[in-house]
Structure formats: structure tokens, C-alpha cells
């Protein structure tokens, strides 16, 4: 991505290093320490949930009735839950579904939202109004209520879960993309392309899409955070993905039922993991936002 070009200035004879647009974005992205912290946090979670179970070979589902509700100790680094299951192993495996579903749902909602927003912005006025009214109407219903409803209807697997989460997440993206396209399509270069006879598809893909890609990437990043939070909330409420595979939200809900037996160690690990995920993604999102903001540092 980084291809500095050494240019010798004609006037002063001083050599300057310039970068392509992508190169400048790339450099601005890595400039903030928060971005680096965010990437590090995400790496930590990916290693914890995908490499961790390979190294720490303990079955998160095996009950051990001789060791129920053990506080953290040498044998159980994060203690055990009410059935004597190893909390560290559960936190590790629990991250897998959160990360996979979170990324997939954000990606799906981006695809739907980008297409819908572009079509709406380029469609005739009445269709645009209709399409946006539909978005407004769905947005006026609290999304958690729609998610719980769909969850109750479909009793989802991982794949269906992705689509359920995307069913409300695309709305914001569609609005955002429509706004971007509306402002872009009046630009001279788009008009020039139209005058040269470029088809609507070609204009959408070649001229419009690259220009709002930055905005979409930023939205996608925050979308991952929202999806991870949404699936944790659904699981906490007892819906979400079916048991017995552990996940952070459901484990916090179990932790709550043992709180009165003073099992303080159960309420922290899944919560801290969700916090790290949200913080890291928000940091990366803010970093991308700054990197793509062309008004800055040009």
C-alpha cells in the first residue's frame, strides 16, 4: 500500500517524498496511538478466542461438580461457574461466535445498505422518497425489539443470526450512502462521465463507490462494534445463539444468577472482553475517520 515516490522539486531542487492518496490515508491511520491500541486490542481478542483454545486445552462444556463456584486459583485461572465449568475456557470459546457474527453481520449490512442507498439516490424522486420513508419507519421502532422478535420467530443458527442482526443495521448505512451519493452525483466529473455515455452501473461502480468508500469503511467499523454489542445483549436476554456453546452475553446472564453467592469473579471476564472489543473497534473507527477525512493534513 505504501509506495513513496521521490520527486525533485523543479524550483528548489529539494527532494520531496510524496505518497499516493491511499498512502496518505495509510500513514494518517497509523499516526494515532489510539489506533495502534485499538488494533492491539483486537489482535489480543482474536488470539484469545481462536488461538487460545488450541493452547489451553480445556473443554468449556465439561461440568465438574467437585469444583463448583471456585474463585480464581492455580488450577482455574479465572475460577469456575455454578456447574464447575472452567471460566477461562468459556471466555476463550465465547469470543469466537461474537467476533465471527459481529464481522459477518457488519459486512452483510454494508452490502445491503450500500446497494439500497445508491439505488435510492439515483432513482426517480418518488421512488427515493418511498425507499427512504421505509427506512424512517423501521428506524422509528427500537431495533432491540425487532431483533428480539425475529430471534423469537426464527430461533437462529449462526448464519440466520447474521441476517437478523443485519436486518436493522443496514438502515443507518443506507441513509448515509444516499446522502453521500446525492452530494457526489452533482459533481462535474460525474456529469462528464454521464455526457460521455457511461451507464448507470459504470457510474455507480467506477465514479461514485470509490468516493464514498472511506465513509462506508468507517461506518462498517462502528457497525462491527454495534453487532457485537447487539448479539451480546440478545444472548444476555436469553435469546441469541442457542446453548450449549458458551458466549459472553449468556455467560454474564448466568453470572448474575450466582451473584448472591458472592461469585464476583464471574461477572468480570466476559464483561471486560466485550469492553475491550468495543473500545478497540471504536478506537480503530475513530482512527479511520481521521485518516479518511480529506480536509485534514493535506
Amino acid at each position: 500500500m505504501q509506495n513513496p515516490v521521490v520527486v525533485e522539486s523543479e524550483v528548489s531542487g529539494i527532494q520531496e517524498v510524496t505518497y499516493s492518496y491511499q498512502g496518505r490515508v495509510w500513514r494518517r491511520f497509523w499516526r494515532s496511538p489510539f489506533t495502534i491500541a485499538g488494533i492491539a486490542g483486537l489482535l489480543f481478542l482474536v488470539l484469545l478466542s481462536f488461538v487460545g483454545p488450541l493452547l489451553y486445552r480445556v473443554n468449556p462444556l465439561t461440568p465438574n461438580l467437585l469444583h463448583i463456584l471456585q474463585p480464581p486459583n492455580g488450577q482455574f485461572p479465572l475460577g469456575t461457574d455454578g456447574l464447575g465449568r472452567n471460566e477461562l475456557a468459556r471466555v476463550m470459546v465465547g469470543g469466537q461466535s461474537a467476533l465471527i457474527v459481529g464481522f459477518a453481520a457488519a459486512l452483510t449490512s454494508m452490502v445491503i445498505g450500500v446497494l439500497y442507498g445508491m439505488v435510492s439516490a439515483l432513482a426517480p424522486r418518488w421512488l427515493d422518497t418511498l425507499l427512504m420513508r421505509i427506512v424512517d419507519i423501521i428506524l422509528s421502532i427500537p431495533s432491540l425489539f425487532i431483533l428480539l422478535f425475529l430471534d423469537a420467530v426464527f430461533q437462529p443458527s449462526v448464519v440466520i443470526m447474521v441476517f437478523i442482526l443485519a436486518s436493522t443495521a443496514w438502515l443507518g448505512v443506507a441513509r448515509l450512502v444516499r446522502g453521500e451519493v446525492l452530494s457526489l452525483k452533482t459533481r462535474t466529473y460525474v456529469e462528464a462521465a454521464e455526457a460521455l455515455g457511461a451507464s448507470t452501473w459504470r457510474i455507480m461502480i467506477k465514479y461514485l463507490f470509490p468516493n464514498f468508500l472511506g465513509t462506508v469503511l468507517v461506518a462498517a467499523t462502528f457497525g462491527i462494534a454495534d453487532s457485537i454489542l447487539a448479539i451480546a445483549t440478545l444472548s444476555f436476554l436469553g435469546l441469541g445463539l442457542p446453548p450449549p456453546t458458551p458466549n459472553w452475553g449468556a455467560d454474564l446472564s448466568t453470572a448474575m444468577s450466582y451473584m448472591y453467592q458472592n461469585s464476583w469473579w464471574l461477572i468480570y471476564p466476559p464483561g471486560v472482553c466485550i469492553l475491550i472489543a468495543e473500545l478497540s473497534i471504536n478506537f480503530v473507527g475513530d482512527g479511520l475517520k481521521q485518516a479518511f477525512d480529506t480536509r485534514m493534513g493535506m
Partner: protein
Amino acid sequence: MARFIIRRVLEAIPSLLGVSILSFIMLHIVPGNPVRLLLGQHWTPYRAAILTKNLGLNKPLYVQYLVWLWHALHGNFQFSYVYDRPVTGLIMQALPHTLELVAVALMMAHIFAILLGTIQAYYAGSWFDQTVTVIIYFLYSMPQFWIGILLVEFFAITLAWFPSGGITNPANPDPNFWSYVYHLVLPSATLAITTVAGWARYMRSSMVETLVQDYVRTARSKGAGELRVLFVHALRNSVLPLITLFGLSLPTLFGGAVVVEEIFNYPGMGLLYWNAAGDRDFPVLLGIIIFLGVITILGNLIADLLYAVVDPRISYN
């Protein structure tokens, strides 16, 4: 002003119709036949045929929608599968509790967001400003249900200052007002903390912009005290983003109420909805969705009107 209100109410009608069509479509994607669910063990082909006809399920879909809409306009949202009671009755029982919760949370969120944002803006760049920014970033990234759990752990279990659930003390047959307030503290605090975390930075940046305006300098040079400058002169102009956020936050707040009511076993709409989702009691689910759609649209209308009250430059004539 009256004309504006009438126009906005008329504009809200297509949205409300849209919400009703959406709900009706959702009612029909539900797998399983309501007749079978309603009859349960008493199902026979004969009874099923009669009930199908009585419920109007043998008519074309658009007729079914119109009939359903007609009933809905009369406040009849069918019967709960589980409780065998009208949905409207169930909602009316739960709604006041949720409104109390959301109203108190909104009040706390406004007070804290305004105070924090204003003080941060006044001391912009100081260690106080930076510390608060970091804390708010953390709170903003924390799942709401985890905040609720932590509040229960510290304030209900470890310190035992507040009760961990319910709306009053069940052992007390005649609870007074303060008992209700006492039980409202932790649930509404949970809702308010997340809301403040989302709002304070808007308040801060809006206040920072206001404080460099000419009229603020004029107010100072005329000898107004700092508190008066901040909370009388500057606040009026910088509070506008909060009013927009108030309208936009209503769906999120009601969503939060589901989580909070589940944690604190607080018998509002959220808990009703959550139980109904567990029991797959679809008429209750849809009734609540329509109610919330209406409340959200009304909330946005109120936000628009408040705009004109706070900012005389905006007039709706």
C-alpha cells in the same frame, strides 16, 4: 404554531400507517397457525374451521389488514396467547412503569450531560476535561447490561444501599412514594449512565463553540458573573443538540428498558416484551412494537416543538 402542530401530526400519519403495515407483515411471517396455537389441545378440524372464520383468517390478506387496522384503531390488539387477556390491557398495566423509568432516566441524563459538558467546556483541555472524556469513552463502550450488573454488585450486594429489583418492597403492604423512588434509583441510573455517555460530548463541543461567541464576551463585559454567563446566556444556545438527541434517543431508551427491566425485574413494557418473546406470544410483541412506534413519532414531534420554545430564532409559521 397551531398550524405547524396540525401539519406535523398529519405528516406523522403515513409513518404510523407504515409501522402498522410493517407489524402486520411481521405477524404473517410468524411460522405456525394462530388457530392451532389458540386451540392448543382442543384442536379439531371443525373447531379450527370455525375459529378461522371467526377470526377472519379466511379472507384475502388486504381485507385482513384493514380489519386488523380497524380493531387496532379501536385499541384492540388481539388477545395474548399466553395470558388469554387483551393485549391493550397488558400494555396499559406495564406502560406507566416504563414511562416512569424512562422519564427519570431522561431527567438524570439531561442534568448530568449538561453539567458535565458545561464544566468540561469551561475548563477545556484541563486534566479534568481529559479525565472525564476518557471515563465517558469507557462508559460509552461498556454494554448497558454489564453496567447494570456492576451497579447491582456494588450498590445492592456489597454496600446494600439500594434494593436489587422490584418496584416496591413486597413485604410492605402499603408502600409510600419514597419506596417507589428508592427502587427506581439503580434501574434509572443504569439507563441514564449510558445515555449521558452518549450525550456529554455533544454538549461539550456545542458549549465550546458557544463560549467563544461575541455575545458571551458582551455578557461578561457587562459584568455578568461566570455562573450566570454559563447557565443563563450560553446554555440556551448550546442545549439545542441535546433536544435533537432527546428525540433520537427514545427508541434506544426503550430498548435499554428491556435490558434494565430484565436485570432489575421491573414490571414494565420491556419485561412484558421479554417474557412474550420467550413464550413466542406474538400479539403482545406486535402490540408493544406499534405502541413504541407511536411514542417515538410523538417524541420527535415534541422535540421539534421544544426547539421552537428554546430557540426563538426558529419559528414554525
